[in-house]
C-alpha cells in the first residue's frame, strides 16, 4: 500500500515535470516609461519572443480603453514583419495588423548579447486622456508556426498596465530620434495574372524603412498626378506606353523613388485601332460615293 503511494507520488511528480511548459511563445507589450501623466504621450513596443519555436505569421488587434487613451501614432520601422497583409494603421481609434515573416522567425541574433533576443512587431504611441487604471492588451490573436501547414501556437501575451498620475511630471519628455533616412531602395514589377484584376497589368512593389516605417506608396503614370497606391496596383494605362514612378514615403516624410521609362513603345495602330477602322470605312464610303458619281457622270 505504502509502495503504491510512493509510485503514485513519483508518477504525479513526473507528469508535473514533463508537463510544465518550458517556455511559451510570448508577445510582450513593453514601454520604457514607469510613470505617465494625463496629457502626456508614451510609446509602447510589441515584441515577439518565439522561445524556441519558429513563427512565420501573426495577426492581432490592439485592445485599450478608448476613453482613457488615444492611439496617435504607429511605427513599423525595423519590424520583423517584412510583408504586411493588413498594414498596421489607425482606424476607428484602434489597429488590427497581420503579416508574415518568409522563412520564419526564431529570434534576433545580436552580437552584443549572448542570448537570442525578441523581435519588434510594431510600436504604438498613445496619448493619455484621463486617469484611472489602463490596460493595453491584444485581441483576436493568431500566431502560426513555420511548419508548412500554419499550425496555430499557444501564445502568452504580457499586457501593459499603468495608472497615470494627475500631477505634472517634472522630467522633460523623451526626445524622439529623428528619421533622416529614406526608405530602402526598391524596384517594382509589372505583371498580369488571370487570378487578379481580370488579367490586366498591375504593379507589384514593397520596401522597408528601418526607422519610422513606411507610411504609404504613391504611383504616377505618365504625366498624371501621383495617386496613393497599394500593391497590387491596377495600372490605368494598360498600353504601358508612359513612364511609371513609384514613390515610397516613410512616416517622417522621407521619400524613395523607383521609376521606369515607358515599358512599351507607343503603338498607334494598337491604341487607336477602332478609330482607324472607322476612318477606313469612311474613306471607303467616300470613295464609293465618288466612284458612283463618276460612273453616273460618264453615263450622262
Amino acid at each position, binding site marked *: 500500500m505504502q509502495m503504491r503511494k510512493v509510485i503514485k507520488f513519483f*508518477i504525479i511528480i513526473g*507528469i508535473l515535470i*514533463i*508537463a510544465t*511548459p518550458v517556455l511559451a511563445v510570448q508577445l510582450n507589450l513593453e514601454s520604457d516609461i514607469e510613470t505617465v501623466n494625463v496629457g502626456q504621450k508614451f510609446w509602447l513596443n510589441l515584441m515577439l519572443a518565439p522561445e524556441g519555436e*519558429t513563427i*512565420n*505569421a501573426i*495577426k492581432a488587434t490592439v485592445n485599450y480603453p478608448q476613453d482613457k487613451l488615444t492611439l496617435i501614432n504607429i511605427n513599423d*520601422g*525595423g*519590424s*520583423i514583419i*517584412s*510583408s504586411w*497583409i*493588413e498594414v498596421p494603421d489607425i482606424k476607428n481609434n484602434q489597429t488590427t495588423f*497581420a503579416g*508574415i*515573416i*518568409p*522563412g*520564419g*522567425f*526564431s*529570434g*534576433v*541574433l*545580436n*552580437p*552584443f548579447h549572448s542570448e537570442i*533576443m525578441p*523581435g*519588434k512587431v510594431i510600436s504604438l504611441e498613445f496619448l493619455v486622456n484621463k486617469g484611472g487604471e489602463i490596460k493595453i492588451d491584444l485581441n483576436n490573436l*493568431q500566431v*502560426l*508556426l*513555420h*511548419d*508548412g*501547414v*500554419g*499550425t496555430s*501556437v*499557444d501564445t502568452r501575451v504580457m499586457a501593459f498596465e499603468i495608472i497615470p498620475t494627475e500631477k505634472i511630471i517634472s522630467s522633460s519628455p523623451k526626445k524622439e530620434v529623428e528619421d533622416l*533616412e529614406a526608405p*530602402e*531602395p526598391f524596384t517594382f*514589377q509589372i*505583371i498580369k*495574372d488571370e*487570378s*487578379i*484584376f481580370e488579367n490586366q497589368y498591375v504593379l*507589384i512593389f*514593397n520596401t522597408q524603412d*528601418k*526607422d519610422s516605417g513606411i507610411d504609404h506608396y504613391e504611383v504616377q503614370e505618365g504625366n498624371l498626378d501621383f495617386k496613393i497606391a497599394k*500593391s*497590387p496596383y491596377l495600372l490605368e494605362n494598360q498600353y504601358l506606353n508612359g513612364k511609371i514612378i513609384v514613390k515610397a514615403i516613410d512616416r517622417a516624410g522621407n521619400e524613395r523613388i523607383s521609376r521606369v521609362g515607358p515599358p512599351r513603345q507607343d503603338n498607334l495602330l494598337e491604341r487607336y485601332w477602332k478609330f482607324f477602322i472607322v476612318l477606313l470605312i469612311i474613306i471607303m464610303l467616300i470613295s464609293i460615293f465618288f466612284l458612283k458619281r463618276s460612273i453616273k457622270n460618264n453615263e450622262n
Partner: protein
Amino acid sequence: MLVKKGKINGLILIIILGLFLIYPNFFVNADTINISVIVHICGDNIQESGENCDGSDLAGQSCIGLGHDSGTLTCSLDCTFNVSQCENDPDDPGGGGGGGGGIPTPVETSVTFSGRAYPWSEVFVLKDSQIVASTVAGPDANFLVTLTDLSAGDYTFSLYAEDLEDRRSSLITFSTYVSYGNQTLVSGFFISPSIDIDKSQVKRGDNIAIFGQTTPESEVTIAVNSDVQHFKTTDSDEDGIYLYNFDTAVLEMGDHITKSKTALNGDISNYGQALGFIVGDTNIIKEDDPGSGCGIVADVNYDCRVNLVDFSILAYWYQKSSPPEHIDLNDNGVVNLVDFSIMAFYWTG
C-alpha cells in the same frame, strides 16, 4: 487484476490528456528548423573568427610575428592587420613591403555571410524576403558574400542554394541586428542538401533512387518516413553528388516522404526539403507537371518561385469569397492567415 489494469489505463489516459492540454501541438509533426550560425562584429575590440584583429585586440600578433623585423602592428577598420608601421631591416634580404598609411577610409555598414553549400552552386541572399545578392560557391562548396549599403536595424536574412541541376535547397532564415558603421560577420552556414527522386510512384519491392548535391566527401543521412522511420547513410563524391537506391520492400503501400541532411567534420546541416512518393503496384517515372510550374506549393503564378508576386496575388484574395482553387492553399474556401503562413514556409524570394 482487471481493476488494476483499468486503473493503469486510466492513468495513461490522464497522462496523455494532460500532455495534450498543456501541449496542444504535442502530436503535430511540425518540423522546426534550427539554425546554428555565429554573428560577429568588426569594431567591438574583440577578435573573433573571420577577423585578423579587432581594434586593440591583435590576437597576440605583432610585426615580428608577421615576418617583419620591428615596428607597431595595428588593426585596420575592416579588421585586417595594418602593417604600415612595421619595419624591416634594409640589410635583410627577406624584407620589403611597408609604406602605405594615409587617410583611413570610412567603414561601410555591411554584413558578410560565409558557410558551406554545394560545389559551384549559386547561393542567394534574401534581405527581408527579397533577393538582394548571389554568389557562386567554390569547388570546396565554401561561399562568402557581403551586403553593403545597409541602414542600422533588425534585418531578417535568408539563404538558399541552387545546385547544378537547378534544384533548390530549403531556406535558412535568421534575424540579426546590424549596427551602424560596423561590419557584421555571420559564419557557420551549412546549407541542407538538395534532393530529388527518380519515381513518383514505385512498385513495392523495387528501388527508388534518392539523389542530390551537398558538400563534397561528406556523409549524407537519408530519412524515409513511414510508420517506422528508416535512416540510410551514403557518402557524397568529390563534386558533392550523392545517390542512394532505397529498397522499398520495407515500406507499406501508400504515401511516404524522404529528406536528407549532411554531416562533415562534426558539423551537421538541417534536413532539407521533403519529397513525397507513393509505394504502389507499378512504377511511374517522376516528371514535372508542365501545367503547374515546378510543382512548388504556393507558387500561384507558376513561375517556379514563391515571392512578392505570389504574395500580392494572395493578398488580392485575402478574406474574399470563392477564391480560385490554386490560390486557396489549404482548401478551406477562404484566403486567410493560414494560407499566407503556408506561402511563407515555401518562400524562395
